[in-house]
């Protein structure tokens, strides 16, 4: 067979081969991004994502978008600029959420018995969809970073508020005002909970979102823009197909 010949015998077989590769590529990309993104997110924003009473804090609103816009930006840099697929951010976030949900059920609840309503993962989907849509409609990395990145940061809190709202119901406990989220944390003490969170902040309404949450979200949105730029270029670097000269070959 000549080197100029096709490896397949018909167009139908070429289509079949192409589809088979698509599924294998998707599976590998999804699981590899899941693993890398999960270890990144759990070790940079994880504690604020694990616990409902930590989600009650302003730091969660600020930190979670900044550290979670990383992999979506990098995967977009490959899937959009190489293949015109505007799904990089959504695929990344769906992968992360799948990994987190499996873990919260199998391990947090299934092995160490934390209630799932205490450990559910944060919702990152609205921001990821907007990030992809801005890239698809604008076709510009700068526009995506500035508009999409800002939207990613700003949408995080309202995207989660319907889920955590019931946990913000105030309750009185031993003469102190708590949120329901605080009360859960009070009864499920963790070995690693820092003292300032466990003892000092507990029982005050200043942990509510209120007017400081949007301010925190704006700060987060501005930093998300910078992180998007940085990680877009990381994504381009990771997409390289270069070879290093191999003396042995």
């Amino acid at each position, binding site marked *: 067979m000549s080197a100029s010949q096709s490896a397949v015998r018909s167009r139908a077989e070429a*289509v079949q081969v192409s589809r088979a590769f698509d599924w294998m590529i998707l599976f590998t*990309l999804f699981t590899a991004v899941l693993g890398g993104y*999960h270890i990144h997110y759990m070790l940079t924003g994880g504690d604020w994502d694990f616990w409902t009473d930590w989600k009650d804090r302003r730091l969660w609103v600020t930190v979670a978008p900044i550290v979670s816009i990383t992999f979506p930006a990098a995967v977009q840099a490959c899937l959009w600029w190489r293949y015109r697929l505007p799904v990089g951010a959504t695929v990344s976030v769906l992968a992360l959420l799948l990994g987190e949900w499996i*873990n919260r059920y199998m391990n947090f609840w299934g092995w160490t018995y934390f209630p799932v309503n205490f450990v559910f993962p944060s919702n990152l989907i609205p921001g990821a969809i907007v990030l992809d849509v801005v890239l698809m409609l604008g076709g510009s990395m700068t526009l995506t970073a500035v508009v999409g990145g800002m939207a990613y940061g700003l949408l995080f809190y309202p995207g989660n508020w319907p889920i955590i709202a019931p946990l913000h119901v105030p309750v009185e406990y031993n003469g102190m005002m708590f949120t329901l989220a605080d009360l859960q944390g009070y009864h499920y003490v963790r070995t690693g909970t820092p003292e300032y969170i466990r003892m000092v902040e507990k029982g005050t309404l200043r942990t509510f979102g209120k007017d400081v949450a949007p301010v925190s979200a704006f700060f987060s949105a501005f930093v998300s823009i910078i992180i998007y730029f940085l990680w877009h270029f990381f994504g381009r670097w990771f997409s*390289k197909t270069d070879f290093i000269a191999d003396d042995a*070959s």
Partner: protein
Amino acid sequence: MAATTESVKADAAEAPLLNKTNLWAGIALYLVFYSFIRWYEGVYGWSAGLDSFAPEFETYWMNMLYIELVLEVVISAALWGYLWKSRDRKVMSITPREELRRHFTHWTWLVCYGWAIYWGASYFTEQDGTWHQTIVRDTDFTPSHIIEFYLSYPIYIITGVAAFLYAKTRLPTYNEGLHLMYMVVVIGPFMILPNVGLNEWGHTFWFMEELFVAPLHYGFVFFGWAALGILGVLNTEVMAITKLLKKDLA
């Protein structure tokens, strides 16, 4: 007519481009093995894994550590050695169809690699968080560490290096040198192991809160980023496969 009949016979006798049995067997192997491990953790984590000074800890956890370390050395030496010894020395002269078949086998390895990354970097790593938020560590070899650091990480390193060796020794695409991003993907996770040493040293000498976002853990984050090198491998593969097909699929 006779020639056509011969050709059809040859096609029927030819090995399939994608060996689906191997693909599903690979996925099932990790799934069944790790399901067993999860069952073991559930049963012996609480009953024998709380106190590293207890005799039952030695029986159920330290012995497991010793067994897995020996098996990992033996399996990696045998697998990597076999892939290298059986390498194709005339890799540049294979037919396009054989090359395509080998790309499928390569992707079977990569599917297993992605699957192994999921179990190691996602499942067992976050699981370690929940265990240490519940049980105060009194040794570097806690039940979750014996599974996470010393079992699931080596397994994905062994799988990744095997995929790399397969590509390097059997595919013309990788013959021109060492693929930079493939090296990042394979060596990045390996560098997690030295970082395990730093992590345990830190936890041994400093009484720390079990804070997952503590700076001591940032080394794991850095090496976790290496998984993104799969993007470069993907791009190289898409270019190679497109070249082999030479068909307009639009």
